[in-house]
């Protein structure tokens, strides 16, 4: 443990820091490693929370002290100084990658904009730049993309497709699923149970994170794409201005159809309408249009110079208005979207709940926690901090009711009360309902009949399954868990608490490491953010 006094937490500064993507990645990483190593109910979390409150008091920002997002942010800053995270900050790594990518994109945009414009503006005294070609090459593609973006937005806006879906994400999913299928068919049967389980758990945790990040990452990708557009247009305009200023260029139009100058004028007026209020002069006049029509057989000798150059302000303005401006707006929009999404994260996943619970729980324990060996006891200084602590904070607005599901044998052996208390201590849920799983004489439908009437109750949002760890997670059980999760509301949570095998005197043995691991991995394979496995110590009543 680091000496706490020396830690200079960034949130000492008055302005509460906002969540960035890198924080989020680090946070998830830290949270995951805490829950994997069983340290989620560690007293260090409580300490961090108390310090957070103290600092808030000192800074006079009392009202905020109970907000999860801020407390977690503070916790994260503390975690960042601890070994697992301090050694490798995955968020920073990710963001450095994004920054590098961004630089590359800027360079590519500038380069391609410049080269393309320069190529289009080539003029050797015989062949002026074709205005229609210039516009369609530089703007046409962009406008098509813009239209696609707009359509996509509208489709999402009206809920025809989901925000998170796009072309890329389903594609990745499809490929991943294909891979998983292939692996299952070709590799699994031959590999050992251990490596098979590990593989499934790995695939599960890879695909799991997406729900959370997909929108944000898509937003960031969109920002990158828009900035490409911005810099491309900037380069195009700059190149045009530069070439027109320092060299002789000519523009003209041509058509095999019998188009009159009036018609062309009409079109250009239309195009120029966005800026015609301010700068009505930036559009070629009928005479200038007439004077820049090119018939290849006649050459351009007969055309007046002044008419041939008259097009460039119009072209530059078109690039700015139709190329640059929408990209810039979209860029702003994506930026806003990402920030908004980041600020909207509610940190109410199951693991967040568990962390929050361990932060808010007053430490009355004197010895080992429910998860086994006591951690190194806090030094006396921190004990003082514990006493100063204000009591339980908010989150009492609505009681977190929960439903407990148990095997019939287990229900026979242990008392409801003790289990309820243990659950409340561990995760802060208030058990309000019990369901016994059907025994061998009943059909599985019995369970669903019991569930049906309470599906809309608050308790159904938090399910606790008490499971004897020595029963391996057979496919039937896992499929049932999946089905149960599907009947819960989207943000419903489920905890699986493992108990050891019964011993004499009501005690249960400690869950053996292998069983714990097998269960964790099997559940990880479900790639479900709001489903977790942990250990529970209960004392049986009878026998």
């Amino acid at each position, binding site marked *: 443990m680091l000496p706490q006094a020396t830690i200079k937490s960034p949130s000492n500064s008055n302005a509460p820091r906002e969540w960035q993507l890198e924080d989020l990645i680090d946070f998830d990483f830290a949270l995951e490693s805490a829950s994997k190593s069983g340290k989620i109910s560690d007293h260090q979390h409580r300490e961090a929370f108390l310090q957070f409150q103290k600092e808030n008091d000192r800074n006079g920002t009392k009202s905020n002290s109970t907000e999860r997002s801020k407390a977690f942010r503070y916790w994260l800053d503390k975690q960042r100084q601890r070994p697992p995270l301090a050694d490798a900050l995955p968020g920073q790594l990710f963001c450095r990658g994004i920054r590098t990518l961004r630089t590359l994109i800027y360079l590519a945009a500038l380069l391609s904009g410049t080269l393309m414009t320069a190529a289009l503006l080539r003029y050797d005294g015989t062949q002026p730049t074709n205005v229609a070609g210039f516009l369609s090459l530089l703007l046409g593609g962009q406008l098509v993309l813009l239209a696609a973006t707009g359509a996509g937005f509208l489709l999402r806006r009206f809920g025809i497709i989901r925000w998170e879906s796009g072309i890329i994400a389903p594609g990745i999913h499809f490929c991943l699923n294909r891979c998983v299928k292939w692996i299952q068919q070709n590799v699994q049967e031959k590999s*050992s149970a251990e490596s098979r*389980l590990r593989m499934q758990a790995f695939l599960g945790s890879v695909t799991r994170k997406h729900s959370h990040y997909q929108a944000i990452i898509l937003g960031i990708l969109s920002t990158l794409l828009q900035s490409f557009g911005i810099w491309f247009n900037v380069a195009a305009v700059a190149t045009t201005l530069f070439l027109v200023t320092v060299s002789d260029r000519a523009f003209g139009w041509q058509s095999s159809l019998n188009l009159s100058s009036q018609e062309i004028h009409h079109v250009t007026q239309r195009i120029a309408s966005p800026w015609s209020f301010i700068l009505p002069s930036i559009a070629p006049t009928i005479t200038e249009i007439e004077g820049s029509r090119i018939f290849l057989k006649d050459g351009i000798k007969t055309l007046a110079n002044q008419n041939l150059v008259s097009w460039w302000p119009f072209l530059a303005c078109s690039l700015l208005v139709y190329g640059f401006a929408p990209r810039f707006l979209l860029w702003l929009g994506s930026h806003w979207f990402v920030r908004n999404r980041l600020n909207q994260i509610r940190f109410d996943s199951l693991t967040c709940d568990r962390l929050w619970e361990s932060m808010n729980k007053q430490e009355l324990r004197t010895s080992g926690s429910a998860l086994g060996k006591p951690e190194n006891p806090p030094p006396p200084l921190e004990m003082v901090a514990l006493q100063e602590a204000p009591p339980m904070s908010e989150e009492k607005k609505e009681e977190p009711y929960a439903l407990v599901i148990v*095997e019939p*044998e287990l229900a026979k052996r242990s008392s409801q009360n003790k289990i309820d208390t243990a659950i409340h201590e561990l995760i802060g849920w208030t058990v309000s309902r019990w369901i016994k799983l059907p025994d061998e004489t009943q059909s599985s439908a019995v369970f669903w009949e019991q569930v049906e009437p309470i599906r809309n109750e608050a308790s159904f949002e938090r399910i606790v399954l008490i499971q004897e760890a020595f029963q*391996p997670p057979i*496919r039937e059980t896992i499929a049932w868990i999946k089905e149960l999760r599907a009947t819960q509301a989207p943000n419903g949570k489920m905890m699986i608490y493992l108990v050891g*095998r019964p011993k004499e005197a009501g005690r249960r043995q400690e869950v053996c490491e*292998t069983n714990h691991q*097998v269960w964790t991995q099997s559940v990880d394979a479900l790639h479900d953010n709001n489903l977790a496995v942990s250990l529970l110590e209960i004392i049986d009543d009878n026998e």
Partner: protein
Amino acid sequence: MTTSSPIPTYTVVGHPNEGKSSVVATLTEDDTVRISPIPGETTLSREYPVQIDGRTVIQFVDTPGFQYPRRILEWFREEGSNTSNLAEAFIASQGTDPDLSHDVQLLTPLTHGCGIIYVIDGSRPISSTDRIEMEILRLTGNPRMAIINPKEFQENYISQWKSACAKAFNSIRIFDAHQATYSERIALLESLKGINQDWEAALASAIEAFESDWASRIHQVSGILCELIRSGITQAESKSIFNLSEEESAKEKLQKKYENALHSVEKECHQSIRKLFKHNIFNIDIPPQSVLHDELFTERTWQVLGLSKKQIVSTAAVIGGGLGVKIDLALAGLSFGVFTLSGAIAGATTAWLRGEKLARTTIKKQKIGGIKITVGPNTNPQFPFILIDRAMLYFQHVSNWAHARSKPTSSTTSTALQLASVESGFTSHWSKQQRDTCAQYIKSVAADAPYEKQAETERECRKMLEEMLFEISKSNEPTSKAAN
């Protein structure tokens, strides 16, 4: 249900990770069966025939564990009245579902009407899933037997299991896949007779084949032991040197060479015993405090193993000049002297016999100049008995070592029980007659008696050794259990 196969076939089924593969490994003496502490190791059903002289006498089928017991039972209950072969009907209607792959693998062998061996871990309480599985097996109608394989040494649930199994199974046995000995395996086969009358005769002949196979293994071990004695007591290394200043270092080198040679002779003997008992892949852990860990010539080996002082004196008398005369006069004198000297001196002599473990070094002047140094053979009458004791300890260990256990176990309880300490060897418990039979053989080999004489004494000795080996292997208490 018809019994189509003339070869008794038993499908070993059960919950994942209960020890099905372990039971198959032990019953078929096959240490290549895949066993793992992670459930779901076995994914395909596989037949493990037991072949004796190329003839399959019985076969076991290892299967994956039940993955959808409830679904199978519910289907069985619904369709139960429509069909006689439920397993077959289930596979026909549901078999294409990839989720059911393990269950289909498990049920397939049952469609042919083979016997069922249901394996359960007797160290955990029974659950409704187990009752569902039992009901499924009952509904298949195949002859069936339950094996309670206590994975941990907690016997509290065995009676609970027994009463639960009584309703659904024709026979119940406790069979510890990690501790089962030869006789326990035979006993299991005997009880399989009871679950299916059709196979009674076939099983009886299978058991007979097992027994004669076992006898032939023991016969071979006795041969190996005699060979060990022969090599042990005739082993010698010699070297001529011409530069006398090298004498000391040459002696030392020869001594080492002699010890190494003996060591490899012994190791070869142990290897061939191990092969006989089909432990091919993995090393068998000798209990940590077993005297077998000590080298041949360490103090402890010679204190613990071999004959007692009294016994050695009388045995040395039998061997008589055999060992000694051939070698040199000093020893001959002693060997002859043993039975003539008075008690007190006899005590001193036996002390010497115990103390002088190593082979003597002799030096002879050569006619061509220089000297010839010879180390060995070891003339100590105790020495062959120590070799026998070590080999027999090894035999005891290997012959009772369940094949499921070849891999390191995760559980510490079972290793704790393996910690058997050996207080003494076997030879000191032999009768005088047995000792003398052995001594006769030693004498004939050491004295390089005529071939017929050697062959005769060897026959006698092997007969005696076989008896002793049988006793060791038949005893229901291997060292590990005796220690408890």
